[in-house]
């Protein structure tokens, strides 16, 4: 595949963490409708890579481009088209699941509460939508984070260990979501330390120490 033509390209990225050279001249491209599974042992920079791609971490060398343009130059446009889910659920414990979504998704696009409710329903939090996030279990919180990614309607999904804490049903739902997203022409980067069970071709990027 020609890396220049891809929707999202990572070009010769170097990242140091302290005196550790975590990412060395990493290059790849992901096209619309593709899923890239990033895997490797702990501490090889999977999360770091995802943070570079989402723009939270600036690489010491190299660049990440979206549609051929460096992401720092089209920051707000890129962010509006991107949904990032870190390894923690990133919810406010004092706000309800619905409010968490309202404030997080509402900054990206105008959204109505009934749509958010329907999304929560889909990820299995229908009954818990009005409960404060702190009383939800870790798996439920993960499902709320899942609903947040869905509701953002983003073209780019950057997911860090999205299967953590999910039960069998939740994992299956997450897989189905990923399949649908890819089918609709979205692209996804998924960090996971185990095999992804998807009925779609998966590209894999292995990071090693």
């Amino acid at each position, binding site marked *: 595949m020609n890396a220049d033509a891809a929707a999202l390209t990572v070009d010769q990225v170097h990242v140091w963490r302290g005196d550790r050279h975590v990412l060395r001249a990493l290059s790849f491209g992901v096209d619309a409708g593709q899923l890239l599974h990033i895997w490797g042992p702990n501490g090889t920079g999977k999360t770091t890579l995802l943070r570079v791609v989402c723009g939270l971490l600036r690489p010491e060398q190299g660049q990440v481009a979206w549609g051929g343009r460096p992401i720092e130059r089209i920051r*707000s446009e890129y962010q509006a088209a991107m949904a990032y889910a870190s390894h923690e659920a990133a919810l406010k414990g*004092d*706000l309800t699941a619905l409010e968490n979504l309202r404030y997080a998704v*509402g900054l990206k696009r*105008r959204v109505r509460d009934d749509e958010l409710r329907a999304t929560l329903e889909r990820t299995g939090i229908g009954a818990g939508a009005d409960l404060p996030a702190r009383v939800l279990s870790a798996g439920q919180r993960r499902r709320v984070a899942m609903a947040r990614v869905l509701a953002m309607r983003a073209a780019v999904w950057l997911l860090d260990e999205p299967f953590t804490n999910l039960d069998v049903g939740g994992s299956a739902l997450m897989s189905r979501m990923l399949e649908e997203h890819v089918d609709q022409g979205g692209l996804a980067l998924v960090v996971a330390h185990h095999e992804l069970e998807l009925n779609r071709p998966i590209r894999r990027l292995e990071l090693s120490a």
Partner: protein
Amino acid sequence: MNVGAFRAMRLILHRELSLSFRRPDQLLQPLVFFLIVTTLFPLALSPEMSLLRDMAPGVLWVAALLSSLLSIDALFKGDADDGTLEQLALSGQSLSVIVIAKTIAHWLVSGAALVVMSPLVATALGIPVDAFATMMFSLALGTLTLSWLGAIGAGLTVGLRRGSVLLSLIVLPLAMPLLIFGASATDRAIGGESPAGALYFLASLCVFTSSLAPLAASAALRITLE
């Protein structure tokens, strides 16, 4: 449809205020602190009104300064700890917009609340009613400026585990002009003189920090998030 900066600001303001009101203990803490400090002075010094009146502007301003510092530490900390700060930073909105909304929300629940409460304290310290307007206006300007200064400090220290001491070291020296001119405005109003000069200076500081602090604090946050 994209979300405009103004709408985003309203949304964040709403978020911050609902978060504050769900944690009444944290909401009341700086106000109670302000109340306690200002009532301790008459007990420790002397209940003599003339002496208290001389000390009142200083007491009021030092208490306001410390009370504002007490709560500013949490401005970004909570969001940084639970990961929502990253979500805010990646929301497609400029970080300055986020900083402005969060700082205004902080001022509303700390500074503005303190201004509303100040006549009560002022009465206890023997400040004449004629001076209330000046005192409240100067406190409003001063606490807003403090919130802006605090936002820069909070942005710089949010990544540190015990950043609150450092935060005080960063913010307190910058807050000295506020203390001097704020207390002097109140002092002049008590003495029946015109406080205009000191108020102008406070207002200019407030405009200066309002325009520069969002940029400085968002630059600090961006570094912290890395």
